[in-house]
């Protein structure tokens, strides 16, 4: 199998996937890949693997109420059709968060969850502002509907989505008092992006005038918070003809009532720059934070062309990026710093932490995980502002913003907990079973195979010999390798000997704890 160190070629790799490439692909496309999921792709062609990742997933069951303090929704029932009640909305929001985490943990081999989060970070709304749980659930459903779909269609629906209308004040935008918020962010963040400032109010790709005209187009939309739908009110609409600038070839949009916003979106997407902007965002999400001239011309440009020529269907772009020699350049293996969801859900999935047979108990564990991520600087559902998480746009640090002297101890505390005592919810313990891990190693009686086997599942790069030695010091301090073999076989010969099982378990837990604390574990 070939191995490429650093390529800027967008051409697809030709070799079938080996373990390392399959692992790199899945860990970037999912929130931590199980060993069995990686093995299922070994030997397959990249196009076959991508097809698997694009497969339509069944629509998940709606979120359930799990807090008995919500007196209107019996525990175990969904609340999505229950009218808003300020007294209980908070419990429903938490249910939504936990449910979303649950979707990510339980994901199959699919790009869906990673893309749903990508779109949440792109078409940002936040729970604090929107507040209504059902409206936020519908927003989540919209993210999933178009996660692997047509971006232009997606933008149509997002423009009049109730959550977005609330978040960016579209619902209060009316003739005479158009609110520029959505109009501005539509250009700046959601589609074409700013270019260089070439004159006052002129960002090359669009100008302040374009923003004002766009705001007029978008007037008239409202949200009905009882029926949870948006609707158009012609009396609030600015029916004048809107004239855009040079940046859009002086396009004019006459009154089209409720259909008018589509012309605006069409206009913006007719510019290839929109495709480039979106391609760069996808690149940073899946590949790496730095986009230099070479990447721009050899990777971004062809990706943008693919997106544009496919009328903004995202799948061909993803196929092209995720099949490329550039994506499979080993220089970039492990170059992404895991965000808190990657990190925490990764532990659950890579170590196959068993979930409770009781779904509502799992909601409690997933809710805990939401708070763990919050402490690590990522509040699911509430990015810090409309630009999304700064780790995906703030030059020059980008992903490095996830890691600081506050978040490092949080991450260490999380992994220490799950490799040792675990957490208990309603009597069920969520913890790594080290014997599930040893079950994934070819020969756990060999301490080198054991250590490298764990590392293969958990780390993006192979251990070097000095790291193996250090980890051996954790398992068999100052002892020869065969000590481990002796002790392991003593356990397997009599697995009911609880003393020996404890002895082995302690060593495995110490090994996992040590691997989790390596800087390599932060990387994907």
């Amino acid at each position: 199998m070939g191995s490429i160190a650093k390529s800027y070629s967008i051409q697809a790799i030709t070799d079938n996937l080996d373990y390392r490439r399959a692992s790199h692909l899945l860990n970037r496309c999912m929130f931590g890949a199980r060993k069995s999921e990686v093995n299922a792709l070994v030997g397959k062609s990249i196009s076959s693997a991508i097809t698997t990742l694009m497969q339509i997933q069944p629509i998940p069951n709606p979120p359930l109420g799990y807090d008995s303090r919500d007196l209107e929704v019996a525990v175990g029932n969904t609340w999505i059709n229950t009218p808003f009640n300020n007294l209980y909305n908070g419990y429903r929001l938490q249910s939504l968060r936990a449910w979303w985490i649950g979707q990510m943990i339980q994901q199959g081999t699919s790009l869906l969850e990673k893309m749903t989060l990508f779109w949440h970070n792109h078409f940002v709304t936040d729970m604090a502002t929107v507040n209504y749980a059902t409206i936020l659930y519908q927003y989540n459903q919209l993210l999933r509907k178009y996660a692997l779909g047509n971006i232009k269609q997606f933008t149509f629906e997002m423009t009049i989505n109730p959550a977005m209308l609330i978040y960016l004040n579209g619902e209060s935008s009316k003739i005479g008092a158009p609110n520029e918020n959505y109009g501005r962010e539509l250009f700046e963040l959601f589609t074409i992006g700013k270019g260089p400032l070439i004159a006052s109010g002129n960002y090359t790709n669009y100008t302040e005038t374009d923003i004002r005209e766009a705001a007029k187009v978008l007037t008239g939309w409202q949200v009905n918070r009882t029926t949870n739908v948006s609707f158009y009110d012609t009396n609030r609409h600015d029916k004048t003809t809107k004239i855009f600038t040079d940046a859009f070839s002086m396009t004019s949009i006459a009154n089209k009532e409720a259909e008018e916003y589509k012309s605006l979106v069409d206009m913006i997407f007719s510019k290839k720059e929109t495709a480039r902007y979106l391609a760069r965002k996808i690149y940073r999400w899946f590949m790496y934070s730095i986009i230099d001239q070479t990447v721009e011309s050899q990777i971004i440009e062809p990706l943008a062309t693919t997106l544009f020529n496919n009328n903004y269907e995202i799948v061909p772009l993803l196929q092209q990026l995720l099949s490329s020699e550039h994506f499979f350049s080993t220089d970039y293996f492990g170059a992404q710093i895991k965000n808190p969801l990657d990190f925490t859900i990764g532990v659950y999935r890579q170590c196959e932490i068993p979930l409770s047979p009781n779904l509502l108990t799992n909601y409690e564990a997933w809710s805990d995980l939401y708070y763990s991520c919050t402490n690590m600087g990522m509040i699911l559902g509430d990015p810090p502002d409309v630009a999304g998480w700064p780790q995906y746009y703030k030059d020059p640090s980008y992903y490095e913003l996830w890691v600081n002297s506050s978040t490092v101890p949080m991450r260490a505390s999380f992994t220490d907990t799950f490799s040792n005592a675990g957490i208990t919810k309603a009597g069920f313990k969520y913890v790594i079973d080290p014997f599930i891990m040893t079950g994934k190693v070819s020969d756990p009686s060999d301490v080198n195979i054991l250590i490298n086997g764990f590392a293969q599942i958990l780390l993006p790069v192979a251990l070097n010999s000095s790291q193996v030695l250090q980890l051996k010091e954790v398992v068999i301090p100052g002892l020869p390798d065969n000590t481990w073999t002796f002790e392991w076989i003593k356990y397997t010969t009599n697995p009911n000997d609880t003393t020996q099982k404890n002895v082995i378990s302690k060593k495995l837990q110490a090994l996992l704890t040590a691997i989790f604390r390596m800087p390599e574990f932060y990387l994907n």
Partner: protein
Amino acid sequence: MANQPATDLLSSFNTGRKLVLIQLDGGNDGLNMVIPISQYDNLANARRNILVDQSQILKLTDETGLNPAMPELTNLYKEGKVQIIQGVGYPNPNLSHFRSKDIIISASDAATNISSGWLGRMLGRQYSSFPIGYPNVNQPHPISLSLGSTSSATCQGDQANFSTVLKNLSAVYSNSAGNVSFPDSSFGNELKFITNIMEQTASYLSVIKAAAASAKNLSTKYPAVGTNALADQLKLVANLIAGGLQTQIYVVSLGGWDTHSNQVSSDTNKLTGAHPTLLSKLSVAIAAFQDDLKLMNKADEVMGFVYTEFGRRIKSNNSLGTDHGTAWPAIVFGSNVNSGIVGNNPVIPTLVGVSDNLAMQFDFRSIYSGFYKQWFNLTDTDIKQILGNSFPEIQLINKTTGTDAAFPLPSGDLKLYPNPVSDSAILLFESDGTRAQIRIYSMSGQMVNNLEQMQYPVGRQQMQLHLGHLRSGNYILVVQQNTRFSKIKFIVKK
């Protein structure tokens, strides 16, 4: 920084006394370290192919001597700084590395599983809220320090491990991620970034570095860095103690003792080989460390304890080695040690069978009891709670030269006289040149006086304290400077 609970502050435990644990990983062949000269003939019958000539044994007494690889330790014994405890073990000995070490570390019975360590349980009683509220202004230093890959299980408490890990000794002296090199790639760049943040974050690294920078090793007896890993570790420990680190437990280790084969070079040359090499490292390291402490005037504060998970078989095997055994000799060392040999030479039968093992003379928990009571001032009740039972205590500390158990004074640090005091007293302390806070606490944890907030020049300082307003009773006086945190108990008696 957080506030330390007052109850933690008041523990009489934190007297400035330090214990250095030297863990020999693998099961030390004690019979080849502490050689029963009086049993030589029978011993030779059992293990002639690895036993040194009688004339080469370094005599401690007429009956007992050390392996010829240990002249430094022999000299230290003659200086009265070494105690050897024969036949250390426990009932129903387990010959498995993992299990036996767990037993020794957790101080459990052979059939019981305890996950906390013998020092972890002691520390848990003194530092009840750890890690919450640590480090803090009153306890800015690691409670325990493990040199190596993981925090020592000896310091595992019920909630947390009390030990800070120092994996990379050179990180203490450098300003970067040690001499780790990073690949020249996007991955390498991000790895370097994270490694640096992790280093900065290690909560105690800055105080450790400050202590290391405040003093230098003074002994010339340390071997070249990199040639003796135990000496390298003890050298750092000495540096930190001299630099004012208040940490009381240090755990260092040396591996390779599992000498199933070739523990000596050949059946004609027993002076060299794997085991003599290790014994030499142990001997050189302890002697250099003790010499250094003496030169730094810190010897009074430090005791050392050398232990292993089990001893080895009386009869050697055909591979010039020995298999797992049972009882072993412990070494306790320091300037305050009750020097000498505790216990008798093991009795070696005339005909030793291949599975014959040494009988236990002392339960290892008797040694722990000695440390708990004589060095750390725990009560019999405390000790029984920690160990689950009472064990007859071995006298580890020389009662006549060791400091007063009731009101311990770290040497050269704080002195208050008269004590008990009725009106005014003189306080003596060594200033590090920075601003000193001097406070008095009652036994219930309340601060009753905040006396001084001045800067004092470096060196011995003396001041008069007016304590007449205090009611009769016991108090604690705390002197705190940038690199000093000392306390002394005193009594007001009207």
